[in-house]
């Protein structure tokens, strides 16, 4: 499958921001994930053709970074931080609760492609430990019970757009700091929601 004209135009606009097309490799890898739900061989070929690399070179770059998911990944990627500050405040129990509720072990994806679960290293929310991200949208101060409730809600409500503020209101607790005005844009898949990459969507 080749990229639509819209995606191609977005790719060209990104490439134009850099001194060399090669610099657009990482952003374009997110475009590729957005196209296919995870990073496919086809996606890497599309990126390679645009940034002047071989598909093998693109694969070598992609494989260095944990966020370029080359395996089938769930619609909701639940990342539970288990680094030091979150661990001190009970993150291991949050991870266990999330795995129990979703039936998905750390590092796995379920049959239906609804959930992937992973433990994450520090996600910069240590003041609101334990912290969880869904498709990289953050929820702070999550207890094991709230972690379960969050996953049950994702399964039932199936939000098209994952919104950090909404999840925080429903399932969050202690925050690292006041977040300021709420965000109306959120994530539509297991990749970061960022307007210039076309990966964010207005949710409310």
């Amino acid at each position, binding site marked *: 499958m080749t990229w639509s004209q819209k995606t191609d135009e977005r790719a060209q606009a990104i490439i134009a*921001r850099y*001194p*060399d097309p*090669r*610099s*657009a*490799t*990482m*952003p374009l*890898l*997110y475009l590729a994930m957005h196209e296919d739900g995870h990073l496919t061989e086809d996606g890497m070929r599309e990126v390679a053709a645009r940034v002047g*690399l071989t598909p093998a070179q693109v694969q*070598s*770059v*992609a494989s*260095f*970074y*944990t*966020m*370029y998911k080359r395996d089938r990944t769930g619609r909701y990627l639940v*990342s539970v931080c*288990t*680094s*030091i*500050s979150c*661990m*001190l*405040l009970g993150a291991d129990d949050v991870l266990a609760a999330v795995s129990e509720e979703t039936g998905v072990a750390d590092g796995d994806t379920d049959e239906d492609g609804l959930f992937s679960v992973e433990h*994450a*290293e*520090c*996600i*910069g*929310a*240590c*003041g*609101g*430990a334990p912290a969880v*991200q869904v498709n*990289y*949208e*953050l929820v702070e101060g999550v207890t094991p019970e709230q972690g379960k409730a969050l996953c049950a809600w994702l399964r039932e409500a199936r939000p098209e757009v994952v919104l*950090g503020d909404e999840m925080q209101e429903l399932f969050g607790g*202690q925050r*690292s*700091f*006041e*977040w*300021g*005005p709420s*965000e109306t*844009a959120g*994530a539509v898949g297991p990749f*970061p*929601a*960022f*307007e*210039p*990459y076309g990966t*964010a969507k207005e949710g409310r």
Partner: protein
Amino acid sequence: MTDRILTTRMDAHPADSNVLARYEATGGYAALRTALASKTPEEIAAEVKASNIRGRGGANFPAGVKWGFLPPETRPRYLVVNGDESEPGTFKDRQLLERDPHQLVEGIALSAYALDVRQAFVYIRGEYPRPARRLQRAIDEAYEAGYLGTGILGSGFDLDITVHLGGGAYICGEETALLNSLEGRRGEPRIKPPFPAVEGLYAKPTIVNNVETLSNVPFMINQGGAAYDAIGPEGARGTRLFSLSGHVRNPGNKEIVMGMTWRDLIYGLGGGIPEDRAIKAWIPGGASAPWLLPEHLDEPVTIDDVGRLKTMLGSGAVVVMDETTCVVKAAHRIVRFFAHESCGQCTPCREGGSWLERMLARIESGDGRMMDLDLLLDVSDNISPGLTWPPKMTTICPLGPSATAPVTSIMWHFRNEVEAHITGGGCPL
């Protein structure tokens, strides 16, 4: 005396400190106007140099000195802002990006003007989409209002800022790994020299500075570098954001003037330990830093005083551990991080890190052997010969030695507790 610079706007205007109208209404972009209308680039650079600010990304290097390393003739030059913030315990740049992004944009514009840069990049870790969106919106507003783009505010100065999302690799916070990543390569650190100021992005002279470092620049131009230099003790000028987490009642980012004691920070601003439990140890500057102990509570929080105690303020991340903490588990968790984040180029880091991780895992689970105790220090010594502070390096970058910090911390200060895991077949707590 000024005791806060970076967080005043967001505290006074929580509902809209991130938008242009609020920024302008509270003095924003005045420094850029003044600079472009009536100051030379050299005059702006001189203010930053006079401030004596030391970089807030972890290495504490004086910003003005680094700026002075640029070769005078070569163009283009690039400015790269380090927003990779992945050192466990650190969440200060996230707050600056989300809550006062224009302060950073103005800091970048002033710095770019001073350095004769036309293209700046902000590298933000991929797990920070919300901070990236907030910054991007501020950049869009700034273009719209004529603070970025071509002929800024009617002057001859042009500047483009591009936000670049990372891919989830801690090592990309190291400046040369970051530059490789920004060139579309694997994020592997480069051998230095050459330093980025001489050969950086696409081998062009490049200044890399942290988000917090550059967020201070508008103040330095508005009030003067000397005003900044008047804040705080020598060698630790200005205010600084500390990320406080772990076992404290009031976690969060605390903007302070350095020189207060650890007790003031942890028990004063941090509110002490929940349920008044006793403090066991704390990490003074991110997971890479050797731990401090209760006997250090009355030591001053400055870059050099902490260095004297053979550890560092690093990224300003303070992680408090109370008496209920299993030090083996804590050290294991930190070593796991470094083992996972090793880029794999250097054998001592790649192999040593995972050796340490496996040994700590087996001690934690009660399967350790007495010989593991010396082996832990032995492997650490192979990564960083002599286990000195600052660490001796056998590796391309300091990530390798970082993995030894938690190991020496528990072996030198909590050896009995480590041993008890072995003799008792598990955690004694």
